[in-house]
């Protein structure tokens, strides 16, 4: 049975970055990445943006070229899924029946796109966006599509809507909640994005309830709870992910919505780490709440954190969350975690399409959404890291940079 000193399960952003970090930090033991997709590790964010638009070809999505993994002696075991873990024996079983031994295991499997819970979701023409294969399936069908329905007003859904509008498709976007981005942003940001998408020609509907996806073999429309039918040839569902953690849970590792990890990304088994979208960790930027953070930033920083712990240089995870979303000519940059805010302050002018929303909790800055306002984003990052208290009347004063505002 092959043995690896560090076995990484999952070949996405977190898994790839963990392997890169191991070598960068001088680790000389054997390292393998077992990845379910038959692809070199690649960046997922462009799948709903530049790649879908045809602005960026596949090779430019690769996190590192093929030669890198060979030169760094990182074994890529692609097309293989881990189906069971035996923590005591320090072994995993693969979907081809083979087994691998490990010294340390890094679980970086991300998640599966959540599917709609209504009839018709397995019809041809119903898509999700998580992998290259998913994006290619959409691209392969696009020339036959004039009308598309996007389900979900989160980042993926909004980004996909922007791309499809740019490609000249008729787009209806359905959000179940009363506003888009409800889970991640304040009302000012939601209403701004709703207005922008409508101005771009998207038929955007909030509080929308879907009763079925209809069609014979291929989707022909989406039926709403009020009985109306939206005709379409394509449906793209972007309603979040379910973390891929069953084998670890079955092995008795602690977790529920994601695998629970400590400040060093270690699970309830000392030889198993979990990182990226599938890891649930207390986050100091969310007041210590245990949560999964689905972002490139979190994938990379947790990977670096786990690697340090494995190398005996453990440092508590303390990275500030940041994220971006590009739609049309709008560059949204967010830093911190806004959930739990008790005041949201608008800085700048929405109509000028250049503004930021600053989220406060008990007077302290906890997060910022900056739209075409990179300088606010950058300067807020430092203020959030120091839990700065700044008077609201100062925060709205765009004549002064955030970094120059007096602290209370």
């Amino acid at each position, binding site marked *: 049975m092959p043995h690896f000193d560090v076995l990484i399960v999952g070949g996405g952003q977190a898994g790839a970055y963990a392997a890169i970090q191991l070598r960068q930090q001088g680790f000389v033991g054997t390292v393998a990445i077992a990845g379910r997709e038959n692809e070199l590790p690649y960046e997922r964010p462009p799948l709903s943006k530049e790649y879908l638009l045809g602005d960026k070809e596949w090779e*430019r999505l690769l996190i*590192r070229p093929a030669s*890198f993994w060979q030169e760094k002696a990182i074994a890529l075991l692609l097309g293989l899924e881990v189906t069971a873990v035996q923590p005591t024996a320090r072994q995993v079983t693969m979907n081809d029946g083979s087994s691998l031994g490990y010294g340390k295991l890094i679980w970086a499997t991300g998640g599966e796109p959540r599917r709609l819970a209504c009839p018709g979701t397995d019809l041809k023409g119903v898509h999700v966006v998580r992998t290259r294969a998913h994006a290619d399936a959409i691209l392969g069908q696009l020339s036959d599509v004039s009308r598309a329905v996007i389900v979900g007003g989160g980042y993926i859904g909004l980004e996909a809507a922007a791309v499809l509008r740019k490609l000249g498709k008729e787009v209806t976007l359905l959000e179940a909640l009363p506003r888009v981005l409800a889970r991640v942003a304040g009302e000012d940001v939601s209403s701004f994005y709703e207005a922008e998408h409508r101005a771009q020609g998207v038929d955007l509907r909030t509080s929308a309830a879907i009763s079925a996806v209809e069609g014979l073999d291929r989707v022909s429309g989406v039926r709403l709870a009020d009985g109306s039918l939206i005709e379409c040839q394509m449906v793209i569902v972007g309603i979040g992910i379910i973390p891929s953690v069953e084998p670890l849970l079955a092995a008795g590792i602690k977790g529920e919505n994601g695998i629970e990890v400590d400040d060093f990304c270690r699970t309830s088994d000392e030889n198993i780490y979990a990182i990226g979208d599938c890891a649930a960790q207390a986050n100091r930027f969310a007041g210590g709440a245990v949560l999964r953070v689905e972002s490139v930033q979190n994938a*990379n920083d947790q990977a670096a954190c786990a690697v340090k712990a494995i190398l005996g240089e453990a440092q508590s995870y303390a*990275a500030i969350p940041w994220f*971006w979303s590009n739609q049309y000519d709008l*560059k949204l940059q967010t830093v911190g975690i806004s959930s739990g805010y008790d005041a949201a302050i608008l800085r700048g002018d929405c109509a000028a399409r250049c503004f930021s929303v600053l989220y406060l909790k008990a007077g302290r800055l906890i997060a910022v959404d900056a739209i075409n306002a990179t300088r606010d984003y*950058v300067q807020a990052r430092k203020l959030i890291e120091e839990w700065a208290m700044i008077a609201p009347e100062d925060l709205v004063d765009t004549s002064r940079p955030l970094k120059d505002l007096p602290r209370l």
Partner: protein
Amino acid sequence: MTTIVFFEPDGTRREVEANPGESLMEVAVRHGVEGVDADCGGVCACATCHGHIDPAFFGRLLAMNDTEDAMLELVEDQRAANSRLLCQIQVGPELDGIVIKLPGVRR
């Protein structure tokens, strides 16, 4: 072919070939050059492709935009007069022989 010279954070000299139209960040990543993480994949959202540009070439580059200038504030303590984010610089024949020093990504 255009030749680009990178100095990795530990001082290692890497002379690599670039294709027209690639960004300097993509050149570095494609050749496995240490010191360029490229977290955001080239959309000027992370500042992990910061480089100090050969002064002989710096003035010949297209000027940076406000977004890049703002993002460079994230690496303030490593920033110099010849700082640029490499994802924002496209390779062309005029860059042949350019030397870029990589201060390194802190994480």
